[in-house]
């Protein structure tokens, strides 16, 4: 019944997998979970590479995470781990520049691209750029070949999955051959001179120019002509990553918290991933009410203060939300981890180590406890 390659426990999962992608709505604790998973893996002797998208400054500083985008091995104060964690924040601009360096046909062109006004803009603002940069960075980390496990913390919006569907940058451009369409007339236009070209009745470009102005259009086309190979580079990285993510070496972890919007996002993610035949093998439910509090609330008959009454409402509502999510998942192939709100601020290595240990314990034992709780009407 349980597939051969499924994992019974979190530890098994961390041993088996080479890449874990952590998904979930904003505020559920993706960054913290990514960290805790990394800590646990390192405590098991693994060499971990962690890419974090947008960690809180306080947290990053507390852990000595570099702000530069280059992976750096963290010094974990007070912990004696046999493994290591090399961590970095995603620096979109730096990744874009490194892709230019790698794929541009010559150093001269690479330089021209970097100087082009659209370069800065592209790294930051083009729709979905963040996801493409993250994919490129992941490809680089895999290529480096020095990590036993790579953990990727993802941006909260659902767009994180766009690149999985079509792992090409500006995929629409490739799909519709827009690039070809666009570049051809401009290549011609360069020879003829732009105004002569436009007045020769180039309707489509003319329409777009009426929105952006000629100069911007020219700039854009210039840029696209130059970056053709770099875009291909992104496409290559995307394909590679897509292959890895589909293999048994990788898995997706969904992080959720017991609130409606997080649960809905989790359901959408599960559906989307299912459609694309990716595997969700880890579910982490964070920020639950502590177990002893839950136990009391479920039995309490006379709650006198209003605060306690609101708390019970929250508990009941949360139980509903969890049940809904679990009904949506294939639990046979899933490692489930239930994490209560932590009493301490999770702002240093020791606290994260505690959290990591809690997660492991919970995946084994609490799973059963919650299963029973939920069966009660």
């Amino acid at each position, binding site marked *: 019944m349980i597939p051969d390659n499924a994992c019974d426990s979190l530890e098994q999962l961390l041993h088996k997998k080479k890449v874990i992608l952590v998904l979930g709505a904003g505020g559920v604790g993706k960054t913290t979970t990514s960290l805790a998973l990394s800590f646990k893996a390192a405590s098991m002797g693994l060499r971990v590479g962690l890419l974090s998208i947008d960690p809180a400054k306080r947290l990053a500083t507390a852990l000595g995470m570099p702000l530069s985008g280059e992976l750096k091995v963290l010094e974990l104060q007070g912990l004696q781990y046999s493994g290591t964690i090399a961590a970095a924040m995603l620096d979109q601009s730096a990744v874009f520049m490194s892709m230019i360096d790698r794929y541009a046909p010559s150093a001269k062109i690479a330089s021209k691209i970097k100087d082009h*006004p659209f370069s800065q803009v592209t790294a930051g603002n083009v729709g979905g750029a963040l996801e493409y940069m993250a994919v490129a960075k992941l490809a680089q980390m895999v290529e480096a070949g020095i990590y036993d496990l790579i953990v990727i913390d993802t941006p909260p919006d659902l767009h994180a999955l766009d690149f999985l569907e079509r792992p090409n940058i500006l995929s629409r451009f490739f799909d*519709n051959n*827009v690039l070809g369409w*666009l570049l051809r007339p401009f290549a011609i236009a360069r020879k003829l001179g732009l105004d002569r070209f436009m007045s020769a009745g180039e309707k489509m470009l003319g329409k777009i120019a*009426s929105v952006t*102005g*000629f100069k911007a259009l020219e700039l854009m086309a210039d840029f696209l002509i130059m970056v053709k190979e770099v875009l291909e580079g992104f496409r290559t990285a995307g394909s590679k990553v897509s292959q890895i993510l589909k293999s048994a070496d990788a898995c997706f972890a969904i992080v959720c918290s017991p*609130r409606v919007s997080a649960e809905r996002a989790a359901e959408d993610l599960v559906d989307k991933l299912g459609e694309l035949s990716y595997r969700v093998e880890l579910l982490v439910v964070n920020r639950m009410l502590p177990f002893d509090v839950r136990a009391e609330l479920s039995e309490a008959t006379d709650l006198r203060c209003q605060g306690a009454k609101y708390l019970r409402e929250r508990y*009941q509502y949360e139980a509903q939300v969890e049940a809904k999510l679990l009904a949506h998942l294939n639990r046979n192939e899933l490692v489930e981890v239930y994490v209560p709100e932590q009493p301490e601020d999770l702002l240093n290595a020791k606290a994260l180590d505690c959290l990591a240990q809690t997660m492991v314990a919970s995946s084994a034992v609490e799973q059963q406890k919650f299963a029973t709780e939920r069966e009660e009407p």
Partner: protein
Amino acid sequence: MGPHDLESSSFLEHLFARKILMVTGKGGVGKTWVASSLALEASRMGKKVCLLECSSRSQVAPLFGLPSKNHQRLAFSDHLDVMNLDTELNLRDFLVNQLGLEKVFEKVFDNKIVKSFLQFIPGLPDLVLLGRFYHEIVLNKKDNYDLVVFDGFSSGHFFHLMTIPQVIADAQVTGPILEVTNKVTRFLYDPENAGIVSVAAPEPLIVSECLEFCDRITDAKAIPLAAVLLNRVPWSYFESANQKSLSENPSAVELYLARKAEQALRSIETIQSHFAKGRTDSLLLGIAPDLGAVEEPVELDMARTYYGALRRLL
């Protein structure tokens, strides 16, 4: 009227003096609840309100018991409309309404090529969103809204919005887009028109990120910061018999609530001391209660209870 009703109503009055409110905050703090309840209260005070969001899945519609429709104006009451903007359709509306390019785009907008291209223009998606707020308040003479409330994205995204004028300039965009950019940003940067409501919850990381965000927004001198709202403050803070001491054998629930109350107090102190030095008079600071669970559809009295309890931090 209780002793605190005045505080709450003056908070709301000041807030509703603006025409556009953009609610932001880290995931999970209660943005959608705050945006929706603000819109609801404003509509009850007689204002004509448009509540907007831009999500792949509507968060607002279920709260109001409305169907989740894409890019359709839904009337909750005769004073409150709700709409979940679709990025592409919003772009089309923008080109047609604001740039007057109906004739130009009517036939070709659906063309994949044009669509792809437009989505590649730097800054355009965000500009189009801001343009929508401007449109609803200034240009929409049919609905004549007094107030637009936007259930916004997380704080990180807001900074992209701040960079739009620069992005557009760098891309050397000229013509209608540039003109509209200037018009819209000028309107939104005016504190009489627009304001950001930054929502936080009583956790140290959430509070520190909120305060960092507030500083950056203030320094950017772009869209003004209107209010900071600390949400999910435990109910005991608002009860008159406030700081009860723990009983002899405190239950797990009691200990938990006490710990939460303590955490909330620290958060409040952090916020207060942050803004103690040289803060603009017009910045509103408020704290609001944790009401357990926001069910769907929400009970309208919940907003009453919520704002009835709201306290201003002075």
